[in-house]
């Protein structure tokens, strides 16, 4: 697990959190529209630093998030201003992350300034206190640990898939650049065969080039189909799987995971995500996702019911999959409760 909890203050539509949002290894965010699901995913996506490049667009992560909501070309917004990401467009947004038991990272955001704080001071203080009264080689051990800790923030890989069909389209170039890794690992065949489990067609492998294609098998022949010409659900599944398999992010964030996916495809996708071993946070409105998760029953999985007060303060309640299953078995829809 990468992130233990986070606290959001004055970021996007969230004014404050009643308590830190505690995360498990596999997390499902549910709640009414505009309750803060995407905001939590976006806040997490800024790890390890808002100023490093996002995988697909190559923009700084903070610019990428800003552009998801306000296309520069369509609005008269100062390109260098972050105020559109700040609650009610003024003041300071703050996101605090607690990783592996220690608060080592926070981001504060003003109209024209982003200040990522990697928590180096906290780490130095903690190491100094441990060094006192110790002798080599124990001291060397602590110094090594220190170096490892300050290195960690920049080495953490976080992938955020927003609910944006354009983003899925734009993945193609990145995936093509990763073709050697994909082919070496045999991912191009595995992903094509995974797709066979949830569509009526049969595919055998993915071929790279411009455009990326997939080999479609007929009873006595085969042909090549551009991935971008497949249905949007199939295209999304293939591209996300190829990307995640090749870059192996430690933290995977997917907004509206069910968008465009048939329940069988949701099932395949969830099983595959769970077996990745990464920390995962997804948002959904779909009861199919909840049903499938109770069937798959991954360990260390929780469903977070988000609720925002009229004053934009976020609170949440956490239910285990066992509890979700009990509610579903009682013919009640967990999404409808105001926990």
């Amino acid at each position, binding site marked *: 697990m990468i992130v233990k909890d986070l606290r959001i203050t004055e970021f996007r539509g969230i004014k404050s959190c009643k308590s830190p949002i505690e995360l498990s290894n596999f997390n499902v965010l549910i709640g009414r529209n505009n309750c803060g699901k995407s905001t939590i995913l976006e806040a997490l996506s800024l790890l390890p630093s808002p100023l490093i490049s996002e995988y697909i667009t190559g923009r700084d992560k903070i610019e990428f998030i800003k552009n998801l909501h306000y296309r520069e070309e369509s609005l008269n917004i100062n390109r260098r201003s972050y105020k559109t990401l700040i609650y009610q467009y003024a003041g300071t947004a703050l996101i605090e992350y607690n990783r592996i038991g220690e608060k080592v990272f926070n981001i504060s955001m003003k109209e024209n300034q982003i200040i990522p704080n990697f928590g180096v001071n906290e780490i130095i203080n903690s190491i100094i206190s441990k060094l006192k009264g110790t002798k080599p080689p124990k001291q060397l051990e602590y110094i090594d640990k220190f170096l490892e800790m300050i290195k960690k923030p920049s080495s953490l890989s976080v992938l955020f898939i927003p609910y944006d069909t354009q983003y899925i389209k734009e993945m193609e170039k990145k995936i093509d650049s990763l073709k050697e890794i994909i082919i070496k690992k045999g991912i191009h065949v595995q992903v094509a065969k995974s797709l066979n489990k949830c569509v009526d067609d049969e595919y055998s492998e993915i071929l790279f080039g411009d455009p990326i294609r997939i080999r479609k098998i007929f009873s006595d022949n085969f042909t090549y189909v551009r991935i971008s010409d497949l249905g949007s659900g199939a295209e999304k599944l293939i591209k996300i799987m190829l990307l995640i398999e090749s870059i192996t992010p430690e933290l995977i964030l997917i907004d509206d995971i069910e968008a465009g996916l048939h329940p069988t495809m949701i099932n395949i996708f969830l099983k595959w995500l769970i077996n990745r071993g990464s920390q995962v946070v997804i948002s959904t409105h779909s009861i199919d996702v909840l049903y499938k998760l109770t069937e798959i029953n991954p360990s260390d999985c929780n469903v977070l019911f988000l609720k925002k007060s009229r004053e934009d303060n976020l609170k949440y309640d956490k239910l285990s999959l066992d*509890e979700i299953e009990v509610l579903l078995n009682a*013919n009640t*829809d967990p999404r409808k409760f105001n926990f």
Partner: protein
Amino acid sequence: MITLKLVDDEKGLELRHVILNGDGIYPEKMILEIICEKYNGKEKIIFYPRTGMKNQAGVSALDAIKILVGRRYSNFIFIVDGEYINEDPRNQIKRKLGSIGIGCREEIIPLEDGFLIRCSSGSNKFYLYCIISGPEVCIEEEVARFIELKLNVRVNIPEGPKNASWRRSLRQEIRSNISRRELKRQLKEATIRILENSFPSICAVLNYIEEDFQSSNIN
């Protein structure tokens, strides 16, 4: 005057009761909704957070109380078909509650074809209204009675042991007499008296709820 309203979304409403159903949703939801409408319901909210799925959980649906009761919900209406009740329903439901750590605080108050139990789970206290449909096997028996009373048409009750296949046969008999859409129309047109005679347990419990038992009154 009865002022109950059945909703499937509690947003912005002051919630009174949550329905738990051991038998899926049709036709219970339709009947409840129409009876509440008949009672001209506006104020007291009955929340039916139903799924589109049909799980026949029987008394296992009561497991949900354990999850909900600590989360601001304190009045429940449990509807279950008689086929899931193998003994005295009061004993069976009490025992089920006991198995999930819920104690019955006060004596069960018998209603006509239903009953109310005052319960506690830890420090949380709540009311549970129980409706046994049928009362022998299923709510379709009550629907058959309604058709007879409202349309003066006798539904042929299948012979043989009253089990799941008997229930299926009864459902087919009902469908051969009246479509779902027509049944809904007839329910809407029926008088309160016919509804109370056809669905006595549901009406008895709704009437009792009207006497304004509120969680705040539990000490």
